[in-house]
């Protein structure tokens, strides 16, 4: 039943997304609401979210294929497939964000290795290849020593690429809200947190329920999610409190926008209440956390909270003027510090999510991702 619902959601999302894709390809960025001041919008936030989830999913997969933990035996292939689909969605999202998407090859052949963005593009390309080959080996030759080598290499690359996302923002000295030395350390933690949440969702709602280890897997993943959530909240508290105490106006303005300004509802309602507190309360209760449905839905709420959190890193960092009076001095389309994604941006994002959902479901239909299928 849930699978049918997921198929229906994915199809509907893709249909809505089709209009967004058409608009994006036919009219470029004209109908986007990001501009020259808030230059990165929903698609960049979703890229950070999907790519981070992919890195986290891979990290979870190493519990099976690298560290050979008996509890997670058979979970690795699902995690790898989830990571591959998520990475695809992330790269698709950021590709659509480019002004000249036909020139993406230049990053490979005429790139600047000193740019963090270059390093990320190369890193994610390598990461995608590693996931794909690892998944192939995990299905076809699960006993191959190469699988373990690849998983070990992939773990390093996953840490590197998720750290690079932090560095992508952190190197910007012009934006104190992003210029946090620990960003490259924080982001791998965020990635692992979203990876654990993704596995909660997959195992809770879509995996066969006859695995005798399932309850224990959900309980451990739930506890891991709670621990990572608390660490993430602590990082956020540290960043926000230091920003406010530090008193640098650009920094304080950005934090205020999140806590009390135009993004308050996204922060307090979506990220904190729905994406953090509810999952936290449910997942610390052993009975609920071991329940497929509860665990799965909490995984979804956690993922939604992490997606919102990505937006709340990107948008406020760009919504504070570098120089006062910029907007009042010269007006025009796309010259504003107020950003809310346009319908086209939402549609494209919905379409990307639809593609990811359908892609994942089709994979579970046609690939031997579950332990028993492989044994058969």
């Amino acid at each position: 039943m849930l699978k049918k619902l997921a198929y229906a959601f994915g199809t509907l999302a893709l249909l809505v997304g089709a209009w967004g894709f058409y608009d994006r390809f036919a009219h470029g960025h004209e109908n986007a609401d990001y501009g020259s001041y808030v230059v990165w919008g929903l698609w960049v936030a979703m890229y950070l979210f999907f790519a981070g989830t992919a890195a986290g999913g891979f990290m979870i997969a190493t519990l099976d294929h690298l560290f050979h933990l008996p509890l997670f035996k058979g979970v690795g292939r699902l995690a790898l497939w989830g990571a591959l689909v998520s990475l695809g969605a992330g790269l698709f999202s950021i590709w659509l964000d480019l002004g000249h998407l036909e020139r993406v090859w230049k990053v490979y052949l005429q790139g600047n290795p000193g740019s963090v963005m270059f390093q990320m593009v190369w890193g994610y390309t390598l990461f995608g290849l590693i996931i794909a080959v690892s998944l192939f080996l995990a299905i076809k030759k699960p006993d191959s020593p190469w699988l373990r080598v690849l998983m070990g290499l992939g773990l390093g690359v996953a840490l590197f690429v998720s750290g690079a996302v932090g560095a992508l923002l952190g190197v910007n000295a012009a934006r104190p809200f992003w210029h946090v030395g620990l960003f490259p350390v924080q982001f791998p933690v965020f990635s692992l947190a979203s990876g654990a949440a993704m596995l909660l969702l997959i195992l809770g709602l879509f995996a066969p329920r006859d695995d005798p280890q399932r309850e224990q897997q959900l309980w451990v993943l739930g506890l891991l999610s709670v621990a990572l959530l608390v660490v993430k909240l602590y990082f956020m508290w540290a960043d926000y409190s230091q920003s406010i105490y530090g008193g640098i106006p650009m920094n304080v303005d950005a934090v205020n926008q999140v806590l009390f300004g135009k993004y308050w509802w996204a922060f307090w309602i979506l990220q904190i209440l729905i994406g953090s507190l509810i999952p936290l309360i449910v997942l610390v209760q052993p009975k609920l956390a071991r329940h497929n449905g509860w665990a799965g839905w909490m995984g979804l709420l956690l993922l939604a909270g992490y997606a919102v959190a990505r937006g709340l890193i990107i948008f406020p960092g760009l919504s504070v003027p570098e120089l006062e009076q910029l907007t009042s001095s010269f007006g025009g389309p796309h010259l504003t510090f107020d950003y809310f994604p346009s319908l086209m941006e939402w549609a494209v994002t919905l379409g990307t999510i639809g593609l990811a959902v359908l892609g994942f479901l089709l994979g579970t239909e046609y690939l031997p991702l579950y332990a028993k299928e492989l044994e058969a």
Partner: protein
Amino acid sequence: MEEVEETAGLLQKYASQVFAGLVAPALEGVQAVRATIEDVLAKEDVLLRMQEDLKRALEKPAAERRWVMVIDLRRCIGCHACTIACVAENNLPPGVVYRPVLSEEFGTYPNVTMRFLPRPCMQCDNPPCVPVCPVYATYKNEEGVVVVEYDQCIGCRYCITACPYAARTFDFGLTYLDETPEGDDLVLGRSRADEYERVGAFEYGELRRRKDRKTSPVGNVRKCHFCLHRLAEGMLPACVTTCIGRATYFGDANDPESLVADLIASPNVMRLKEDLGTEPRVYYLM
């Protein structure tokens, strides 16, 4: 009281001589008097002086020039003529601006005044926008001007996030006549009336027509380039020649005879956000 007056008189008489005696050796060989902009203006229009400076600079190899811009905030009247001249010169579409004049009103009525801050690209010597570009599309050319290679730029906009001065904007492909009606045979409609918007500009010395909504510079990041195409033809940047307050000066700072070399040696000169270490080439006189 008398004693105090005597001491004061003594100090007045000798203190300046003592000070001069201390300082004079250090000043030996140094030209003590620098021309203020008022001095220069009293003799000739600064545009003529800058034109001469430019002529001399262009005779040198490009790598030996150091283009700088100096903006006298006391002379800026906030007319925005420079902004408009720049828009016209570079045929900028809606949403793209190279040189806004930031205007701030402060004080309380009736004691209210305004101050203005023209903000071109700072052409930083240590530009944060350059190292972040993943494809070397933006760099400092040999004259020290930060340029964008439109056909190389992928439109990721990372450079915009890195610029502390918001000096870069993205070309979304809009035209001023968007959403105006298409005309019939008798009326000049959008697709004919907006022809002037498609003429293009000579940025970087190359005529680029805006033939559609996809071809560069649409989808690219754009910025002030000190009107390199005009400099190449011996003309000052459009914002300089248009400034009715004679508040914007331009020239080669490597030429000790140039006006800008004089001006940036003034004690009342400052640069924006110097603490970031960007080393801007735009100086402001306060």
